[in-house]
């Protein structure tokens, strides 16, 4: 069961097919997984808007209840993952150009994008150490991280990247 990164998990919503999928997986005792840094990113994104818009506070509550109920499983950022994340960050201090960059020339990315990059590093480290693939819509970032892991551990399998689940038709 792949670990959903933030680009995928941001689609969790009471009215989304992704939530339906997650609920079915949880009922089958095979919940989808999120890395703890993704929970951080979702919580930040919702809480920041919740101050001015109560609808986001409601969604934050729903997301909290979702986690508390174990509908998705959260992989903690272990010390081993933190150790690996530090090594990955040292080898790839900035996100790859292109990929998620709108103009494809972000040599000196904005601080916010650096934070997103560090989050992706932590997600990749968590997933790889758990022996899981990463499910992402941001192939560029995670392909670079898969390469970085391959450079560090050439004897091990690389981080595998899988596309986001497709919404059910009908």
């Amino acid at each position: 069961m792949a670990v959903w990164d933030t680009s995928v998990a941001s689609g969790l919503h009471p009215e989304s097919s992704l939530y339906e999928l997650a609920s079915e997986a949880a009922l089958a005792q095979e919940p989808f997984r999120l890395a703890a840094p993704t929970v951080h990113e979702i919580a930040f994104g919702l809480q920041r808007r919740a101050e001015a818009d109560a609808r986001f506070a409601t969604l934050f509550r729903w997301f909290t209840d979702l986690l508390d109920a174990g509908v998705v499983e959260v992989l903690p950022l272990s010390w081993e993952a933190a150790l690996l994340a530090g090594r990955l960050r040292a080898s790839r201090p900035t996100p790859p150009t292109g990929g998620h960059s709108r103009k494809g020339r972000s040599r000196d990315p904005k601080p916010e994008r650096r934070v997103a990059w560090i989050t992706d590093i932590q997600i990749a480290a968590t997933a790889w150490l758990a022996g899981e693939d990463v499910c992402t819509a941001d192939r560029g970032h995670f392909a670079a991280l898969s390469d970085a892991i391959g450079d560090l551990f050439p004897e091990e399998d690389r981080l595998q990247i899988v596309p986001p689940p497709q919404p059910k038709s009908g």
Partner: protein
Amino acid sequence: MATKQKVRSTSARRTGRRTTLRVPETLESELSRTARQLGATENEALVYLAQLGADAAKRRRAVEKVTARRRQALIGSGAAATGELPSPEEAREAILAERG
């Protein structure tokens, strides 16, 4: 024998319930080592180790109480999930806003 004499001279008379117990084999080496270190009898070393264990259990219970209270403060805080929601697109945009 010297050790025993030392123990007898330093051990305080204990009050409290007397009991008989069987010492697990897995504890034997630690019990002997502790008794030697303390210059005490193995009975006294057993009581000493039991006190250490009791202190650790007390600390663990206290920490569990705090972590449960703090977790509840975190999980239980915030709005009730009864109001209007942003659309899935709005939610996704808010979460991914800083990714550019």
